[in-house]
């Protein structure tokens, strides 16, 4: 079970939005590369980065900040926001990204996901952002009629490395992950699912270790890590310790 700390980039700064609203941004660190180093020092093993301006404009906007992050950390980095063409994907993977996250383009053009997975196996993740179970696109400003599970099933057997499922109604408001919807998605597809949006406290971290959540690959945490509601050391210890406990408990069955 992986806990992904999140860096959301707006105007080259590390911010958190509330419910995806660009006007409600809180700046947590003006130096995203320094933030990446902090997360690595805290013991995290992955980094989740979102180019918020990019998500709205449909092209990478905070490229320089992302490159600074890549030089600052040894941890694998996944990036989403505004990446919508094979050339963009290739460009970013060449620069050292571990995974590229396709969001809007995956809804509009699922064939591109297929092509990308064939060209870059294991390095393409799909971000599915949903409100009330329906997929949202264009930096969450638009809603569609497509169901989240329906979209996820389109990528079965294509070779998608992970699905990052964000419940928009909960993102950045610390009301707790929508575990029911996220776990239901994880059982509906064979692609690993990462929970995102609203991780609020250590209760959510413990919830990740409940047996019914074992199909999840992990969860992304943003605001709660920045404002101290989730203590990184304690969270990582809970995940590490209960993982070994459940593994050994299974062995004895």
């Amino acid at each position, binding site marked *: 079970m992986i806990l992904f700390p999140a860096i959301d980039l707006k105007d080259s700064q590390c911010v958190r939005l509330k419910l995806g609203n660009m006007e409600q941004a809180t700046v947590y660190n003006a130096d995203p590369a320094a933030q990446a180093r902090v997360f690595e020092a805290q013991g995290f093993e992955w980094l989740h980065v979102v180019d918020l301006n990019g998500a709205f404009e449909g092209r990478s906007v905070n490229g320089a900040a992302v490159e600074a992050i890549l030089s600052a950390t040894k941890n694998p980095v996944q990036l989403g926001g505004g990446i919508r063409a094979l050339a963009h994907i290739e460009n970013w993977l060449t620069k050292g990204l571990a995974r590229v996250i396709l969001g809007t383009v995956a809804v509009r053009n699922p064939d591109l996901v297929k092509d990308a997975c064939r060209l870059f196996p294991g390095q393409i993740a799909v971000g599915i952002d949903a409100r009330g179970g329906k997929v949202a696109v264009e930096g969450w400003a638009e809603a569609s009629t497509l169901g989240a599970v329906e979209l996820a099933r389109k990528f079965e057997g294509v070779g998608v490395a992970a699905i990052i499922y964000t419940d928009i109604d909960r993102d950045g408001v610390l009301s707790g992950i929508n575990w029911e919807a996220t776990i239901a998605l994880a059982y509906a597809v064979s692609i690993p699912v990462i929970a995102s949006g609203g991780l609020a*406290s*250590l*209760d959510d971290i*413990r*919830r990740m*270790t*409940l*047996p019914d959540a074992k199909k999840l690959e992990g969860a992304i945490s943003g605001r709660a890590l920045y404002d101290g509601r989730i203590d990184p050391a304690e969270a990582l210890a*809970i995940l590490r*310790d*209960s993982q*070994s*406990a*459940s593994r*050994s*408990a299974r*062995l*004895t069955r």
Partner: protein
Amino acid sequence: MRVAIIDYGSGNLRSATKAFERAAREAGITAEIDLTAEARRVRTADRIVLPGVGAYADCAAGLHAVDGMWEAVEEAAIDRARPFLGICVGMQLMSDRGLEKTITKGFGWIAGDVKEIEPADPALKIPQIGWNTIELRHAHPLFAGIPTGEQGLHAYFVHSYHLGAKRPEDIIAVADYGGPVTAAVARENLAGTQFHPEKSQALGLALIANFLRWNP
């Protein structure tokens, strides 16, 4: 109804307070959740909750260190027979003695000692940290309506020691961790859980609501 959660410097009690407030609200029970370090507020409370994390000896010393607190707990739980819930080491303190680090005297309400868990399988780590199902040994109002057994709800454990109760009737639930470990004890108006109801999601909230309704 005022529920005193005893604050004697053992761990972060915010999650316990929040869980009791939420359980009361969701069950429609009017209860004032009173996180308190004052003996007189414990003595006069309608229900008593004694949390505890860490070592038995440290928790006992911590409780004795608050002026009049140990006696206030005895007065409320025994003389006034108020419903009492011990959580984790708070439950262990209901025993005769704790054998962790040194021999420490407990309240002596549940006959037996608190001793190290000894999983039969060496692959099982100590402490037990994480979710486990529980098996009821006796029906008890605290577990009313809660699915238990292998297909039941999970409880959240963090412990290396458990209460080896001498009287089988005092043990109301066990968990399987390479053999049975004591998960819950009860006698008259006194009850305790080795697991953390405040961290146990659905099972925990249901158990807390049952405790708030309990009329022993």
